[in-house]
């Protein structure tokens, strides 16, 4: 499967575009010797300057990929693809994991509530909200959120980015905030670690930076949660409806168990089963997950970076990202299958 997918990615990208041509066009204004070196470093030509055939490039690429070397970026040369990705990974993961956890918890709760109070106003409201989330394109809800909650409306949250500029934080009264906390830590911790004043300053800066970061992340996470929640909640509701009609729930009722125990102990685990499969799919999409949300909120994450490298056709980055994401999806599906056996003893691997 790994081979099939790597082949698919590589062939797709090499079929619809020609990396050699692209790279050559990029370096054509350099001196001949420099050009030759660059092309060699991209892995497109061998030491004699001859073009390496495609199948051999594929083998080289997959060999390097397995060993953690994803090649060099075309756009920001010389820089490793891995370093470039690393810069954006944290922001994306922060947003996506938060959104996914929130969406999952909320939707399981409201899905169960909706099914339990079937055919009451509560059920109708929850179903309607879920349907809204399913039907509203994520960029529309994002733009609505921007219009309502940012500078044009309530002014509660900033509209774009993941952090404020340090200058703005300084202007707000935090004089030490000119450098982000990790820079301060790297530069000064070795000399000042015995000084309590330094520690209080550092904690203060860190606290202000975290607050700022949280303020920036609220809207993207809310938007993503709203969209993701819809599918989860609908799935939970329909599963729960089916389960509440089963005989063992009737048996539990007949035994005189409280309604809470019935839902919590007897129904919940069975509701989670189909959700786990779906969660596996969502986790797979975590890394790329939200190019649209990131565009709406100008969020410096992997999705945005992927779009930016697409605009300049930075082939190594595109290939690396595609491959990583596909692998993530594969592994999370596998993880979901394994989780299945824990949740449902009837299934054996």
């Amino acid at each position, binding site marked *: 499967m790994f081979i099939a997918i790597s082949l698919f990615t590589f062939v797709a990208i090499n079929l619809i575009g020609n990396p050699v*041509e692209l790279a050559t066009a990029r370096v054509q204004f350099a001196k001949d010797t420099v050009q030759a070196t660059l092309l060699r470093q991209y892995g497109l030509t061998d030491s004699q300057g001859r073009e390496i055939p495609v199948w051999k490039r594929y083998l080289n690429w997959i060999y390097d990929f397995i060993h953690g070397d994803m090649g060099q970026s075309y756009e920001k040369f010389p820089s490793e693809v891995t370093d470039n990705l690393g810069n954006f990974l944290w922001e994306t993961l922060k947003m996506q994991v938060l959104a996914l956890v929130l969406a999952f918890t909320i939707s399981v709760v409201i899905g169960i509530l909706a099914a339990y109070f079937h055919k009451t106003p509560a059920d109708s409201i929850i179903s309607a909200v879920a349907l809204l989330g399913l039907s509203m394109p994520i960029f529309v809800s994002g*733009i609505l959120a921007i219009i309502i909650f940012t500078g044009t409306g309530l002014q509660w949250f900033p509209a774009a980015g993941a952090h404020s500029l340090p200058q703005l934080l300084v202007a707000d009264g935090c004089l030490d905030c000119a450098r982000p906390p990790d820079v301060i830590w790297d530069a000064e911790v070795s000399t000042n670690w015995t000084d309590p004043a330094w520690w209080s300053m550092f904690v203060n800066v860190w606290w202000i930076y975290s607050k700022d970061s949280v303020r920036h992340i609220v809207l993207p996470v809310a938007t993503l949660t709203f969209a993701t929640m819809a599918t989860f909640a609908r799935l939970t509701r329909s599963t729960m409806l089916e389960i509440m009609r089963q005989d063992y729930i009737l048996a539990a009722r007949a035994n005189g168990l409280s309604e809470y125990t019935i839902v919590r102990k007897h129904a919940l685990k069975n509701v989670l089963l189909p959700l786990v499969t779906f969660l596996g799919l969502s986790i797979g999409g975590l890394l790329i997950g939200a*190019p649209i949300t990131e565009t709406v909120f100008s969020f410096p994450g992997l999705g945005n970076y992927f779009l930016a490298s697409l605009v300049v056709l930075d082939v190594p980055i595109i290939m690396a990202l595609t491959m990583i994401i*596909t692998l993530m999806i594969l592994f999370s599906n596998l993880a979901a299958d394994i989780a299945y056996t824990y949740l449902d003893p009837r299934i054996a691997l």
Partner: protein
Amino acid sequence: MATSPGKTKTLDESLTDGLDTDLQARVAQQSTNQWVLVGQRIKKNRIATLAFYYVLLNILIAILFPVVIAYAPNSRQPGLDRRFGGGSSNFPNLKYPGGTDVLGLDTFSRGLAGAQTSMLVGVLSTTISLLIGVTVGLYAGYYQGKVEEIAMRITDLFLAVPFLIIALILLSMINRGQAGALNGLDHVQIITILIGIFGWAGLARLVTANVKQVSSFEYIDAVRIMGASDKRIMFIHILPNTLAPVIVIGAIFIAGGILSEAGLAFLGFGDPVNTISWGIQVNLSRTELQSHKEQALIPGFAIFFLVLGVNLFGDAIRDALDPKLKE
């Protein structure tokens, strides 16, 4: 006819009548046809009827919009008309009912033309998915064994590859003239084909499972004994019995197709003047969000309501097909 010589015949009497009974039985049989029942149930559901008419309205707009609009969707004329309500980014007025956008294009006509794009992409991509998915599912589920194994591996591959990424790569390659034979196709065509190709895998699995179930029934054996060919069994005896979930999924696919198209258009790859799409309109409005909120909200809510309509209608079909859920 010989019995009661009174006024009108009662139902019981007409049932005793030879010819009438036959006719009535046929009528009764016809009216209990599943699809008639489904239609009746949907008619009873007021929200679903409303949604149906809204989607119908969109289809009408998609077909008839050239009659209504004063300026072609990609005409530069409104942009030059600064003194009389046009220009770049103007508020709605009587001459330009939707205002004009950043590029000086008439938002009203682009809004109406966007309905066409959305409907076309939604319906065509769903047709492609359904054709491939149902065919593969039928063959895999009927022949089983090796055919099924191969088909399932291919669906695995398609389910694992993220659609958005491949679509974005392809679109950006086309923008840069890097896509070889595909360069001639325009944006909407590429998106339609891609959505269609990436949608079939999940459907094929569902159809395979259903076909496997149906083909183990006894009446299939009976038909086979009567000497029907494999093709006849598949398309005449199995296919109609697996169609119900396919129709529900079709509605979901149309909604999904419209959303995907809008999302890809929103990400802004391609030519914003000649490609007409609600997503592109929202994207263009992003720079003007502070002063011209209506530019984002009108096309945004157009997508939203259309998708909502399709989803509601799909839900109604699902409920109507499966009365168990309604209790």
